[in-house]
C-alpha cells in the first residue's frame, strides 16, 4: 500500500510538471493553429536564462523567473511578427518547417554560447526529504507544483476573462470577422505566441531547478509535450492538464510494477490507443473552430 501511495505521489507530481511543460505547445496550437516544433527549445532557453541569472548573476529565483517570462515573451512576440507572420495562411507545412528551423538555430546557438555541460537553476526551496505519512516528497517539488497551479490558473483567467483573451479566441475562430470588429489580429497573433513562449520558458526555468537544463534537452521535452497534448486534445487547456497527469501516473505505475527501462514507451502506447479510440483526444476543441 505504501508502495502504491508513493508511486501515485510521484506520478501526480511528475504529471503536473508534464502538464506545465505542454501548456505553451497546446496554447499556441489552440489559439494560432501553429504546430510549434521549437517548443522544447524555448523551454531550454528559459532554463538556461534561469541558470545564468541565478548562478552567474546571483539573482533571486523569483526575480529570475519574472525576467525569463518578460524576456522570452518579448522574444516570442518578435519571432511572430518577424518570422511566423511571413508564413501565416500558407498552410501547415511552412509553419512546421519554420519552427523546426528555429529549433535547430536555438539549440546550436545555445551550444556555442554555454557548451554541452548540464546546468541547474538555483532555487530557494530545500531538497531535504519531507515525510507525509509513508510518502516522501521534497519542499522544492511541492513548491514548484504550487507555482505550476498558480501559473495555470493565471493563464486560464487571462484567456477566458480578459479582453485580450477574448480577442485571442476571436482571432482564431475567424480572423476576418475579428478584424472587422476592430481587433488588430496581427498584434493578437504576436501576443499569443509571446504567451506560449513565456509559458514554455517559465516551465524550463521552474523545472530546471528540480532537474537539470542543457542545450540538447529540447527534443525530449517536445516529445513528451506532444504525447501530453495528443492525449488531452490538441489545443485544449484542460486537456493538457489531464493529459499530463494521466501520463505521469501511467509512467509511475508501469515503472513501479513492471520495468522502468521501457517507461518512455508507455506514453506512445497511450497515444496510439487514444488515436484509435478518440482521435481528437480527451477534450476535443474541434467545436471551437469556425
Amino acid at each position: 500500500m505504501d508502495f502504491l501511495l508513493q508511486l501515485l505521489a510521484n506520478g501526480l507530481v511528475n504529471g503536473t510538471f508534464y502538464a506545465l511543460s505542454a501548456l505553451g505547445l497546446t496554447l499556441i496550437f489552440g489559439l494560432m493553429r501553429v504546430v510549434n516544433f521549437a517548443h522544447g527549445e524555448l523551454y531550454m532557453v528559459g532554463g538556461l536564462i534561469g541558470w545564468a541569472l541565478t548562478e552567474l548573476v546571483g539573482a533571486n529565483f523569483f526575480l529570475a523567473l519574472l525576467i525569463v517570462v518578460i524576456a522570452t515573451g518579448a522574444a516570442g512576440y518578435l519571432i511572430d511578427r518577424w518570422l511566423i507572420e511571413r508564413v501565416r495562411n500558407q498552410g501547415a507545412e511552412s509553419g512546421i518547417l519554420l519552427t523546426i528551423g528555429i529549433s535547430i538555430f536555438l539549440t546550436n546557438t545555445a551550444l556555442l554560447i554555454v557548451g554541452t555541460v548540464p546546468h541547474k537553476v538555483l532555487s530557494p526551496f530545500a531538497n531535504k526529504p519531507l515525510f507525509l505519512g509513508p510518502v516522501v516528497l521534497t519542499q522544492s517539488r511541492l513548491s514548484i507544483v504550487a507555482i505550476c497551479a498558480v501559473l495555470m490558473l493565471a493563464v486560464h483567467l487571462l484567456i477566458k476573462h480578459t479582453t485580450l483573451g477574448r480577442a485571442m479566441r476571436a482571432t482564431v475562430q475567424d480572423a476576418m470577422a475579428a478584424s472587422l470588429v476592430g481587433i488588430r489580429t496581427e498584434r493578437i497573433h504576436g501576443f499569443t505566441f509571446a504567451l506560449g513562449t513565456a509559458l514554455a520558458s517559465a516551465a524550463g526555468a521552474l523545472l530546471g531547478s528540480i532537474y537539470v537544463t542543457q542545450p540538447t534537452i529540447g527534443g525530449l521535452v517536445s516529445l513528451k509535450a506532444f504525447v501530453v497534448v495528443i492525449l488531452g486534445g490538441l489545443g485544449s487547456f484542460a486537456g493538457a492538464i489531464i493529459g499530463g497527469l494521466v501520463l505521469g501516473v501511467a509512467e509511475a505505475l508501469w515503472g513501479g510494477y513492471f520495468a522502468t527501462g521501457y517507461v518512455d514507451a508507455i506514453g506512445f502506447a497511450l497515444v496510439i490507443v487514444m488515436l484509435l479510440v478518440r482521435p481528437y483526444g480527451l477534450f476535443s476543441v474541434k467545436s471551437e473552430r469556425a
Partner: protein
Amino acid sequence: MRKTCLGIAASVVMAATAAQAQETIKIGLIQPLTGSVAYNGKTDVNGATLAVDMRNAKGGVMGKKIDLVVEDGQCRPAESVNAAEKLIQRDKVVALAGAFCSSATLAVMPVAANYKIPLITGVSSNASLTEKGNKYFFRATETDELLAKSFAKVVFDTLKLRNVAYIGVNDDWGRGGVAEFEKQMTALGAKTVMKEYFEHGTTDFYTLLTKLKSSGADGAFVAAETQDGSIFVKQKAEFGLPVKVFGVGSWATADFIKLTGDASEGLYAAVPYASTMTTPKNKAFVDAYVERFKEPPGKYSAAGFNSLNIMMDAIERAGSTDAEKIRESLTKTNYEGPNGHFQFDAKGQATGFSVVLVQLQKGVPNVIATTTVEH
C-alpha cells in the same frame, strides 16, 4: 552547425598547416566535439594536446615536431568514418587516435585496416572491439568486463555489499556493465534484489527510487554518465535513502561533483583514473594540465594524454613513419602513464595499468583502493 564546425576546423587545420614547416609528423585525432558527449570529447582533446605540446617542447619525435590534427566525429559511425577518410587522404596522417564511442570506433577500425594506419583508442570500452582480429587496432583503456573483474572483489570486501540492486542506462554499455558486475558479485556470494534500466535523458528517478527503497538493498550498482548519474544521485538524497551507491561512468569528475553538490558525499565510484592518484607521473600530469586548462583532468583527459604518448613513443621507437613499422612498435609498448603501466596483449588490449575505487568526500574523489587490470 556541422558546416560551421567543419569550416572552423578546416580553417584551423589550414592555418596550422601553413604555419608549420614541412618537417612535421601528423597524427589524426577523432573525437566528438558536437553532440551529447561533446564535453567529454573536448577533455580528451585537451589531454592529447597537452601530450603533444609537452613532447614538442622536448624536441618532438625523431627531431620533428608532432602536428595533431583534430576532427569532429560526433560520436557517430558515419561522421567518424568521414573524419578518418579526410585525415588519411587529405592530411596524410601517419597514425589515428579515437573515436570515443565504441560504435564510432568500430566503424573507423576497418578504414584504418584498409589504409594500414595504426589506430589507438583510450575511451571505447566495448569488449568486442579487440576481438575483431584487427591488427592495426589498439586499446589503451579497460573494457567493461575487465573493470567488473577487477572491482567486484574490492566492492564485496571493502563495502561489504550483500543485497545488491543493479541499475543501468538502457544501452549496450549500461546493460553490459550490469550483467558483468552481477555475474562477478553473484559468484562472490552477493544476492541480486533488483535489476532495472532507465533511458538516456531520464529526468525523474522517483519511481526507480521507490522500488529501490522497497527492495531492501544495502547497496546499489549504478552505470550512468554525468547527466543521468548526477540527477539520480541528487534525487536519491532527496528521497532520504541510506543505500550505499557504487557507480561506474564519469562519476569522479569536477562537473559531476558540482552538479550533485552535497548529495555526492560518500558516493563510491570505480574509475580508470582519478586526479587524486598519487603516482609521481600523475602529479606532474595534473600540475601541467591544471596550469593549461584551469581545471583538474578527468578520466578522458588522461585517456587522450595516454593514447597520444603511446603513439608518439611507438613512432620514436620505430624510427620511421612507415605504418607497418609503427604497428610493430606499438605491440612492444612499455609505457608508464599517470595511471600506471601499459602494455598490449596479442589482441591489442592494454593491461597492467591501475583502476581505482574512489569515495567522494567533501567534493574530492579520495582513493580507497587501487587494483591492477590483468587478464
